[in-house]
């Protein structure tokens, strides 16, 4: 039975708290970069609070010059964030069970980390949507708080890369991928996704590699169906 309740949301919030500590460090780096790009505190906080997608925010800072290329900014934002389209679609069998307003309300907080945990939960038969909402709230708070800290503490901030913090999300997503079911079908899908992503990185327009790799892996999945169905719902 699919449900969304306060208890599940709180549990989701707590599950993402450890990772959120690292997200604060990234928010801090963004706040610092935004201040250096001469954005005001209000602008930087609004951007983190409303856009809530770090990679695209950093990319856009690079594009903000004397003249602002609005169309290029929108295309870059779309390309980097297009992975959300696929993440949302992958949650559809789950989200279709709840009313439209709640469905899109939850999706407002979808991000890489809470999606990755939720997708793994779903495979294991979990049906409480609180992980997406609660986890998303934890990540959002951390991102905005970090941004604010970066704007305020402009001195004495250690370089996040020196501490290896730029690899937190990658390492986290890796543990999520490895934690799922592994069989020959999954390995072939992953190999396809990896090869296509690397080819796209080399030959397709910038920022299109995640979507290209994911779609290729999905196509293999569509033609090579799993023998047994996913776990029955709890």
């Amino acid at each position, binding site marked *: 039975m699919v449900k969304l309740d306060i208890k599940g949301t709180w549990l989701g919030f707590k599950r993402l708290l450890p990772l959120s500590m690292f997200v604060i460090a990234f928010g801090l780096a963004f706040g610092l970069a935004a201040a250096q790009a001469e954005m005001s505190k209000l602008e930087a906080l609004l951007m983190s609070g409303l856009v809530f997608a770090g990679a695209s925010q950093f990319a*856009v800072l690079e594009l903000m010059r004397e003249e602002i290329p609005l169309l290029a900014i929108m295309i870059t934002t779309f390309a980097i964030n297009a992975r959300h389209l696929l993440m949302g679609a992958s949650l559809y069998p789950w989200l279709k069970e709840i009313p439209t307003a709640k469905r899109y309300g939850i999706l407002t907080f979808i991000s890489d980390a809470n999606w990755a945990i939720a997708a793994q939960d779903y495979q294991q038969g979990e049906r409480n949507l609180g992980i997406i909402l609660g986890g998303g709230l934890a990540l959002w708070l951390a991102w905005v708080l970090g941004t604010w800290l970066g704007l305020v503490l402009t001195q004495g901030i250690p370089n996040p890369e020196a501490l290896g913090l730029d690899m937190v999300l990658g390492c986290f997503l890796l543990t999520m991928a490895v934690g799922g079911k592994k069989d020959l079908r999954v390995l072939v899908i992953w190999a396809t996704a*990896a090869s296509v992503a690397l080819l796209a990185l080399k030959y397709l327009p910038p920022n299109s590699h995640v979507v290209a790799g994911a779609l290729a892996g999905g196509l293999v999945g569509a033609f090579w169906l799993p023998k047994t169905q996913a776990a029955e719902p709890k």
Partner: protein
Amino acid sequence: MDLSNTASATFIVIAAMTLVTLITRYGGVFIMSFVPLNRRVEGFINGMSGSVLIALIVPMAVEGDTAASLALLTTLVMVLWLKKPLAAIAAGLIVTAAWRYFIG
């Protein structure tokens, strides 16, 4: 479509980014609501789900510095060995920070 870099222009940029990002967050589910779910579509969805992760991670390893690849390799080995994600991530970060500090 270039704007001169003023305060109001920055707000337009933020509004545009917010709109585009919300479209990506909502669009996948919106489009799927017109697609009938059958076994093939489910196969596509579950294949794509893991593939998003792989397509994010592999280029990080290939494009990043040696320390970045080591972070991912250490995490991979540790999570397979210990089955503890947080410990594995911590190990990955320690190796990365140490590599960057001592080697470059």
